[in-house]
């Protein structure tokens, strides 16, 4: 049964939710989620790349020969990543400084190549756009969730705003690398409580 466009869009929020359901794209999920702001920036950058690369790949799917498809996808994805990098440097400099190397690394984020290979290369442009946007926003949501949690426990703030009671002693551990694993593990455990559809 074919899904409607809306279903293609909303599946990115649960069914194929990248870091939590597919457990893909863990490098940025673990590395940059120390501040809610960073998670948000990374998520939006990835969404942009995913959306446009899906559109371009879907519209070129009949032209690109099968044997060089991966190379073509990588070139297209890399182009959008560099565009994002330049635009972020030009207009959102402080956050691009914080994300640093992880912006160029979006090229090898398996979510993007995964969607290109598994979805955009087989579906129409509109479907691929909905899929890219949905998965991208799902990814952004997940990053914001995990980074807010880490920022809340590790610093007592969310998006830089203090929300904990005075006298709250932050767990410095949560903003360190091991905190990322612990936090991700907890979320995955909670999510797996929800039974998977057969």
């Amino acid at each position, binding site marked *: 049964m074919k899904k409607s466009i809306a279903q293609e869009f909303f599946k990115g929020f649960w069914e194929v939710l990248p870091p939590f359901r597919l457990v893909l794209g863990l490098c940025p999920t673990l590395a940059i989620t120390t501040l809610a702001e960073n998670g948000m920036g990374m998520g939006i950058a990835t969404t942009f790349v995913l959306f446009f690369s899906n559109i371009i790949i879907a519209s*070129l799917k009949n*032209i690109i020969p099968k*044997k060089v498809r991966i190379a*073509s996808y990588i070139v297209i994805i890399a182009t959008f990543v560099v*565009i994002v990098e*330049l*635009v972020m440097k030009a207009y959102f*400099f402080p956050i691009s400084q914080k994300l640093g190397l992880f912006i160029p690394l979006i090229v090898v984020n398996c979510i993007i190549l995964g969607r290109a290979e598994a979805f955009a290369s087989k579906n129409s442009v509109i479907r691929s756009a909905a899929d890219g946007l949905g998965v991208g926003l799902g990814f952004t949501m997940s990053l914001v969730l995990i980074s807010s949690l880490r920022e809340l426990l590790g610093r007592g703030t969310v998006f830089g705003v203090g929300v904990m009671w005075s006298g709250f002693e932050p767990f410095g551990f949560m903003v360190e690398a091991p905190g990322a694993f612990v936090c991700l593990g907890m979320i995955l455990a909670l999510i797996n409580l929800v039974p998977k559809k057969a």
Partner: protein
Amino acid sequence: MIKEYLKMIVVLTLIAMVCGFLLSAVKTFTYEKIEEQILVNVKGPALTNVLSQSSNNPINDRMEVELEGVAYTVFIGKKDKKLYAVAFESEGSGFGGKIGIMIGIDIEKSVLSGIGILTHQETPGLGSRISETSFTDRFKGKPLTGNFKVKKDSGDIDAISGATNSSRGVCAAVDTGVGIYLKLKAEILKKFEEGSEDK
């Protein structure tokens, strides 16, 4: 068979070409904006550090000075409306690549008013410690006639232990910077006089 290969080559070449054009267009479009952002966000803090006594904004009071066909951007530090120090960029080779520094020179006293590290690719945790003020402060107040080498090379600067090559890179950058300054000094003073007469 041949046709299939040809198609692969043509398609991939076309994609790469279009992407290349697109990127160079975006690069040109964002170039000035990025330079401006770097000026404010990276060089700005370094400047306030190396020209800490200035009462003006050195980013606004900058000028281009030419030496042997190379243009240098010189940032002016003023105290009581008088030129007291200048700052400009210099570079040297470190352990992992080029180290770019901002070097500030006190004109009145002929000493270094400070240095700041702008860019580097040194090993995190070892060479990257050259950006720490405990290291950059070792250059503060050194006379321009000083020997800007690490102590191992019989110079005046204490290297960071475990990061001798990175420290050498910074010393080389300072040495180059001082060399540039000595050649530029007359030109800078002349230009500054002209500039203040206009006002």
